[in-house]
């Protein structure tokens, strides 16, 4: 996935932005989707599709703990994705042309 594709996936919705900010400010957060929703002040239904997208992207990871599914930030993948976004942004000029 190119840097521009990663960037557009990350910024596809306001909710996704909130989830990204939550996990970047709190990289050690481990919680259920319900818990993540509460922490960003939204409902589970409102965040579930965005969490799924971030899981597909690899930024978040999922794990079963007992009877609960939890999500958490994959720090290594996160660094890799942000690096690709950073490299992409370096090539973009103001006005949108490369």
């Amino acid at each position, binding site marked *: 996935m190119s840097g521009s594709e990663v960037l557009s996936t990350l910024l596809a919705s306001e909710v996704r932005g909130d989830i990204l900010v939550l996990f970047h*400010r*709190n*990289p*050690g*957060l*481990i*919680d*259920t989707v319900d*818990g993540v929703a509460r*922490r960003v002040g939204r409902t589970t239904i409102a965040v579930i599709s965005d969490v799924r997208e971030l899981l597909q992207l690899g930024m978040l990871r999922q*794990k*079963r*703990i*007992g*009877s*609960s599914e*939890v999500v958490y930030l994959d720090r290594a993948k996160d660094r890799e994705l942000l690096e690709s976004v950073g490299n992409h942004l370096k090539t973009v000029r103001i006005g949108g042309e490369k």
Partner: protein
Amino acid sequence: MTASRSKTGASGFDQLFPGRAEEARVKTGVVELDEMLRGGFMPGDAVMLAGSAGTGKTTLALQYLVNGVKLGEPGIYVTFEELPDQIYRDAKNFGWDLRKMEEQDKFRVICTSPSLMLESGSDSLLDDVLRDIQPRRLVIDSLSHLEMFVKKDDMRMEAYRVIRYLKTRGVSSVLLWESPQISGGSFSVTDVGLSFLVDCIVALKPVEIESSMRKALVILKMRGSDHDKRLREFEITSNGIKIESAFTNYEGIISGSPRKVASEKFMEMFRGASEKQKKA
């Protein structure tokens, strides 16, 4: 069959494994506290750090972990209360850059829900992070939060499970406990019998003396080791906890009614009388 003992008192078993009898202590890095603990906590012990809100439990626990990192012992801070960004910010005020330590894989702040900590299954919440950074020290802030998710009767069993999980992995743990009981007349640390599960109890307590609020620290219990039994005054400075001298001139501090000891009262009267004499 009895184990033979050497002149130093070490058993035959101990002589087979030199260093076992006098294992290196887990230093808190707070010099005066380490002196009180006769060198530090015992390795692998579960330590309860009890106190009411605002007494400095979180600061002391973070200081213990940060000093551990400086000594080459990675640490984990598990919080049920504050979000990590608040902890990073507060730690920075004491000059501790937790984010930098995280980048170096020497430290982790884990934020989660107590209910997830209590989930039982083949995978534990902490398995991955324990594997990743191989911690020697771990803090749980706080064990009191588990109470909201388990029945009072089950609390002791759940706490035992958490303690055993950490001990099995050789991790020295500090478990914070919100303890309003030790402020006032009662001397009980927890009302669910956790004091018997832990190896060491350090209590922090606010005390009112001559119309000002001061803070006291006392080691209530330390399994298998001598320790300082005195109540010591401490302050939260810009570098963390600083332990001062003992409250030798006061009694009744734990009961919540500090008063000067009789000899000190006498000395005060004596000093007052001699000053009057000088003026006359």
